[in-house]
C-alpha cells in the first residue's frame, strides 16, 4: 500500500482541465501536481481548440515544464486513454491538489480495490472547508458535487467506452454518471485533496453542458424527467410520476386544536384540507388513525372534507406513535404510504408528485420534505446521525440560507428523513417491519430510516416539497433514556459519522 511518502509514482496520470481558468491558474495547478510527486510526463493540460488563443500562454508554460498539452476533443481524450499505462486518471478541475493528495488516493484505492472512482474534500483559498457528501446518485443529477479532484480507474473508463463526444465541457460528470449506471462503486475519500478555485460564474458554458449530460443520462436510464436550471451548476430534476399510483396519507391524531398565526384551528382538519383541496395529486386516500377521545365534530369535519376517500381507524390504547402509524399502514390500500403528522400545512401544492417521482427512482427507499416552523425557520432538511444520536440538518436556519455546496436547493441523499412527512412504498414498509413499538414517541423514524438503509436503499430529502410543521404545538419533546439505549443497541456503530449533510 502506498504511503504519504510514496505517492504511487507512475500509477497516476493527472489531467488538468484548462477550461474557464484565468491565464495564471493552469500553471499553478500544474505546479501543485508536480509538487505532489507526479512526474511531468504523467501530467496533461487539457485545452479546447476553440480556446487555443487564450490558452496559448498556459500551454506554452506547460510544455516548458515538460507537461503534454492535449485537446479536449473526446476523440483525443479517448486516444490518450487507450495509450496510457497509468492505473488511474486523476481529473483536476478548478483547483490545486494538496501535496499528499495522490498518496491518499493511492492508499484508498489500494485498501478498497473495488472502487472505480474516488473524489474528496477541498478547501477554499482562505481555508474554509468544502466537505462533500458520501456518494449520492440522486444529488449528482442536480449538482456536480464531486469537487476539484476526481480519480477514476483507467480500466473502468475503458469499460464504459471512454469519453462521449456529446459530453464536451462536462466529461467528468458524464463519466461518473455512466459508471453509476453500470453499478460501479463511486466513493468519497473524506480527506482534503485540494484547494478549490471557486467560480460562481459559468465562464466556460459548463452549466449548459452539465444539463445536457444529465438529460442524456436520464434518457439512457429510461427515466422520464424534466431538467430545470435553478442557478449556474444547479438543477432541479422533475421526475415524472410513473402511472397513477394510489397514495395512502396516514395521519395519526387526537383531534387537537392550537393557535396558529393568531387563529385557532383544528390541526388534523387543516392537514386533511391541505391534502384533499390543496394538493394537485388526486389519487389519494386519507387514513386517519384517531384516538378515542378525538372530538366527534372533528371526525365529522374530516368526513365532510375527504368523503369516500377517508378511512377512519380507531386507536384506543395508550399513546404510541409507532403503533398508530403501523395500524394506519395496515389499513391502507395504497401502493405508497405518505406518513404525515397532523400539525402540518402544505406550502407547495405539487409536493406529492415531487416526493413520489423521487420515490420511484431505483435505489430510493424513503423521501422526506422540507419543513418549516411557524416563524419560517427550518425545522427539517434531512436528519444527521453522529455519535450514535440523531438531529436535524440546518435546524433553525432562516429561509433562504444555504451551505457552500447548495444542499438546500437540490434533491439529495441524507442519513434519514423525519416521519412527520415521508413517502415510501407500502411493501417496503411491510418488508422492514414498519415502525418499532420499542420507540413509542421518539427516534421511531430514525430506526425506520436505518432499517430501510440496511436493505441497501437510500433516504432522499427534497427541498421542493415544502410544508409548515407546527411541531412545538403538539409534541412532548422529552426523550427517554430507553429511546436512546434501544436505538444505540441496534445502530450505534452505523451512526457514528455524518457523511451526507456535512455542511449543514
Amino acid at each position, binding site marked *: 500500500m502506498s504511503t504519504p511518502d510514496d505517492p504511487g509514482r507512475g500509477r497516476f496520470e493527472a489531467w488538468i482541465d484548462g477550461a474557464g481558468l484565468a491565464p495564471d491558474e493552469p500553471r499553478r495547478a500544474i505546479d501543485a501536481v508536480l509538487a505532489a510527486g507526479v512526474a511531468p510526463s504523467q501530467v496533461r493540460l487539457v485545452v479546447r481548440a476553440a480556446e487555443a488563443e487564450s490558452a496559448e500562454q498556459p500551454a506554452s508554460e506547460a510544455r516548458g515544464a515538460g507537461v503534454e498539452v492535449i485537446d479536449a476533443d473526446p476523440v483525443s481524450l479517448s486516444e490518450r486513454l487507450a495509450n496510457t499505462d497509468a492505473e488511474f486518471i486523476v481529473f483536476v478541475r478548478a483547483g490545486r491538489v494538496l501535496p499528499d493528495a495522490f498518496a491518499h488516493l493511492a492508499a*484508498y484505492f489500494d*485498501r*478498497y480495490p473495488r*472502487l472505480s472512482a474516488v473524489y474528496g474534500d477541498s478547501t477554499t483559498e482562505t481555508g474554509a472547508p468544502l466537505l462533500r457528501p*458520501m*456518494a449520492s446518485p440522486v444529488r449528482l443529477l442536480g449538482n456536480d458535487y464531486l469537487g476539484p479532484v476526481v480519480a477514476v480507474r483507467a480500466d473502468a473508463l475503458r469499460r464504459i467506452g471512454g469519453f462521449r463526444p456529446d459530453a464536451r465541457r462536462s466529461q467528468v460528470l458524464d463519466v461518473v454518471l455512466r459508471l453509476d449506471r453500470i453499478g460501479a462503486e463511486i*466513493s*468519497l*475519500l*473524506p*480527506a482534503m485533496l485540494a484547494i478549490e478555485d471557486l467560480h460562481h460564474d459559468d465562464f466556460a458554458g459548463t452549466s449548459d453542458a452539465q444539463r445536457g449530460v444529465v438529460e442524456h443520462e436520464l434518457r439512457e436510464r429510461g427515466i422520464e424527467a424534466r431538467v430545470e436550471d435553478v442557478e449556474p451548476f444547479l438543477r432541479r430534476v422533475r421526475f415524472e410520476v410513473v402511472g397513477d399510483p394510489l397514495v395512502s396519507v396516514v395521519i395519526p391524531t387526537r*383531534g387537537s*386544536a392550537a393557535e396558529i398565526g393568531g387563529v385557532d384551528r*383544528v390541526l388534523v*382538519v387543516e392537514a386533511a384540507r391541505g391534502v384533499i383541496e390543496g394538493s394537485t395529486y388526486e389519487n389519494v386516500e386519507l387514513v386517519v388513525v*384517531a384516538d*378515542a*377521545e*378525538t*372530538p*366527534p*365534530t*372533528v*371526525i365529522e*369535519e374530516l368526513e365532510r372534507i375527504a368523503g369516500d376517500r377517508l378511512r*377512519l*381507524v*380507531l386507536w*384506543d390504547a395508550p399513546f404510541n406513535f409507532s403503533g398508530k402509524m*403501523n*395500524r394506519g*399502514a*395496515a*389499513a391502507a390500500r395504497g401502493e405508497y404510504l405518505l406518513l404525515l403528522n397532523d400539525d402540518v400545512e402544505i406550502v407547495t401544492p405539487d409536493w406529492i408528485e415531487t416526493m413520489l417521482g423521487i420515490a420511484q427512482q431505483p435505489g430510493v427507499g424513503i423521501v422526506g420534505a422540507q419543513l418549516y416552523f411557524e416563524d419560517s425557520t427550518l425545522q427539517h432538511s434531512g436528519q444527521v446521525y453522529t455519535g450514535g444520536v440523531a438531529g436535524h440538518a440546518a435546524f433553525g436556519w432562516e429561509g433562504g440560507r444555504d451551505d457552500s455546496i447548495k444542499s438546500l436547493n437540490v434533491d439529495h441523499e441524507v442519513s434519514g428523513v423525519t416521519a412527520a412527512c415521508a413517502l415510501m412504498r407500502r411493501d417496503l414498509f*411491510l418488508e*422492514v*417491519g*414498519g*415502525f*418499532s*413499538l*420499542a420507540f413509542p414517541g421518539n427516534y421511531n423514524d430514525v430506526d425506520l430510516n*436505518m*432499517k430501510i438503509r*440496511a436493505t441497501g436503499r437510500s433516504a432522499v430529502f427534497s427541498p421542493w416539497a415544502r410544508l409548515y410543521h407546527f411541531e412545538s404545538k403538539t409534541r412532548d419533546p422529552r426523550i427517554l433514556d430507553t429511546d436512546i439505549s434501544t436505538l444505540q*443497541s*441496534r*445502530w*450505534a*456503530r*452505523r451512526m*457514528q*459519522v455524518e*457523511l451526507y449533510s456535512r455542511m449543514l
Partner: protein
Amino acid sequence: MSEVRGVNWSEGRPGIGLTPEERAIEQHLELLDRVIGLEQQVTELKSANVLGPSETIAVERNLAAMRSSMTWRAGRLVTLPIRAAKVVKRRILG
C-alpha cells in the same frame, strides 16, 4: 370548532377497526420488527466492520484526531499511575 371531550367518536360507527387481514398485517409488522431489531443488535456486537469505505476512513480520522488532542494526552498522563497499577496487578495476580 367546539370540542366535546368524553364522547367516544367511534361508538356506533362500523368499519373503524381493522379487518382480520389488516390485524394480521399489524401483528406481522410487530413480529418482523422484533426479528430485525435482534438481528441488528447482533450485527452491532460483531467485531466485523459494518461501515463502508468512506465511513471507515472518517471514523479512523476522528479517532486519530481525538488521540492527538491535548485533552486525550492529558487524560493519558493523569491515568498513567492507575493503568500502570493495573498492569502490575495483572502480572502479579495473573
